[in-house]
């Protein structure tokens, strides 16, 4: 029973919860059993909250019994990237410096999920402070890709993607600063949506790069992603950058197809260095869109090649400031042997942060420092304007853009750990959309011969998530890649 139960999509499970064919406690127990069974291999979870999840499941069942479910997904167990603050439940952001930190409050999206009745099964592994593309910068352990345990599930929301792909949870929340939802989704045959900047509250989400970070849903199907998205897409008066727009209805038109839509294919996203199998899969997917009635339009985003440099300067600069609060004074780990205040700072931070985080703090501090600000930070902000304008022009011609999510499929753990530049290149197709604040989505579009998932990225206009989901759904309907059994 439990293995088939965990294979259900969120919406399928919700339908069974609604008819009371299955209880939330059963679904949650099935999830917990699956975690006990596969997580020793996948290592997606930093911490499982069995009592909390079961308590929430019981409360959900009581609501279902009383005929007053809190939401369409009431009772569906999900997981949280460990970047979301959970009141009373340790939150580390994948870092030693926050080991033992028990937040006194819930992130807004956590509160929304709790209010919607979703049992929160536990906290998912991630690259430390979301800085990484492979989950290997987690201070605790790397997560493994359920499709090939020797490979990375991607990052930084790698734990979320792996847990969803391995059927440990029905869905999860991740965050995306430069591709951290979409790239792991592409690596694990799951769907990941990075919403428009400002669509989902960042309150209680540990900041990496504040002007780029955006939380979003990760799930196995487009419908699940849409349903989860609708629970968290709310204006939040606690986040000044939260957009005061209504929650979109993404489910009503989900099956409307792509007939008549103009899909732009940015030529700069098909460049040398792309894996031939990824390119082949993508080209085939594009033809399929045409067959389904969409028009493909060749478009140019001429400043794409500058996006990587721009991103690393801006994200690292913001991070260097955002991470200044980890000083061992009010919370988190404090260096034991520090003598004096200066050492308290330098040793706490020197010992508490991992190599990648320190590297980015160093880069960001340098880019903001006296004499270099104009050359690095300010220049990058100006190039960011050019990149935004590229997208604005493209969206005058087309309804959405389609491209590969990642230039390569999941790579081997350990392959790129000591080569930051080549690791940074993993995000080359995903990060321009963060710089422009646009919504982006990755949907499964096939497998390589070795059985590794390939993802298709769809980018849209601000607040046009419903259309992205509709395009993704049109594609998914033809394939049902999510039905493919995961080997783990």
């Amino acid at each position, binding site marked *: 029973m439990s293995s088939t139960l965990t294979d259900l999509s969120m919406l399928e499970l919700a339908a069974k919860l609604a008819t009371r064919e299955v209880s939330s406690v059963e679904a949650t127990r099935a999830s917990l059993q699956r975690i006990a069974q596969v997580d020793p291999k996948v290592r997606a979870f930093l911490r499982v909250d069995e009592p909390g999840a079961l308590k929430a499941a019981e409360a959900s069942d009581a609501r279902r019994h009383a005929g007053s479910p809190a939401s369409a997904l009431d009772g569906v167990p999900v997981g949280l990237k460990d970047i979301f603050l959970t009141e009373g439940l340790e939150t580390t952001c994948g870092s030693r410096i926050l080991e033992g930190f028990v937040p006194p409050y819930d992130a807004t999206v956590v509160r929304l999920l709790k209010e919607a009745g979703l049992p929160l099964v536990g906290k998912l592994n991630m690259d430390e402070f979301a800085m990484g593309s492979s989950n290997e910068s987690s201070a605790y352990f790397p997560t493994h890709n359920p499709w090939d345990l020797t490979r990375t599930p991607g990052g930084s929301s790698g734990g979320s993607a792996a847990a969803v792909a391995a059927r440990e949870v029905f869905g999860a929340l991740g965050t995306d600063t430069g591709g951290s939802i979409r790239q792991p989704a592409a690596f694990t045959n799951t769907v990941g949506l990075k919403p428009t900047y400002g669509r989902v509250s960042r309150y209680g989400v540990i900041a990496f790069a504040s002007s780029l970070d955006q939380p979003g849903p990760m799930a196995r199907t487009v419908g699940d992603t849409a349903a989860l998205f609708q629970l968290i897409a709310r204006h939040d008066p606690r986040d000044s950058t939260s957009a005061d727009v209504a929650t979109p209805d993404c489910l009503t038109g989900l099956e409307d197809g792509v007939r008549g839509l103009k899909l732009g294919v940015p030529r700069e996203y098909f460049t040398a260095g792309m894996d031939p199998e990824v390119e082949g899969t993508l080209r085939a997917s594009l033809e399929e869109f045409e067959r389904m009635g969409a028009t493909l339009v060749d478009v140019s985003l001429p400043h794409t090649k*500058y996006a*990587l440099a721009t991103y690393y300067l801006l994200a690292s600069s913001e991070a260097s400031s955002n991470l200044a609060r980890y*000083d061992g004074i009010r919370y988190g*780990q404090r260096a034991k042997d520090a003598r*004096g205040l200066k050492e308290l700072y330098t040793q706490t931070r020197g010992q508490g942060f991992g190599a990648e985080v320190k590297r980015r703090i160093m*880069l960001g501090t340098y880019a903001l420092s006296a004499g270099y600000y104009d050359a*690095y930070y300010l220049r990058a902000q100006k190039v*960011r*304007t050019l990149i935004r304008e590229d997208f604005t022009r493209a969206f005058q011609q087309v309804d959405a853009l389609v491209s590969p999510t990642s230039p390569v499929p999941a790579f081997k753990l350990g392959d790129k750990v000591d080569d930051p530049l080549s690791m940074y290149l993993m995000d080359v197709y995903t990060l321009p959309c963060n710089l422009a604040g646009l919504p982006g989505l990755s949907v499964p579009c096939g497998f390589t011969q070795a059985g590794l998932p390939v993802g298709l990225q769809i980018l849209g206009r601000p607040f046009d998530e419903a259309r992205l989901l509709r395009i993704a759904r049109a594609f998914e309907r033809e394939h049902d890649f999510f039905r493919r059994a995961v080997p783990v």
Partner: protein
Amino acid sequence: MALTLEQVRHVATLARLSLTPQEEARYATQLSQVLDAVAELEALDVSQVEPTSHATLASSLLREDVMRPSLPPEAGLANAPAKVGTAFAVPKILE
């Protein structure tokens, strides 16, 4: 652009990071590589371009001047590595 060890140490001081000599050497090399890579931005003429500091330009959100309950100090200090009474404790600050 190559970063000297001295520059690396200066930046580490600004960022309050203690680094081992090995880390200093490694970051000198890696940051130099990254800076070489980002130097490609210099090719662009941005003299007429306005900087973008926010992804979207929403109007500024304001809140009413209304007092809300603070955290009970036990909760606010629950994670403190060292405290005295309800104050956070640190090694003596020398002016």
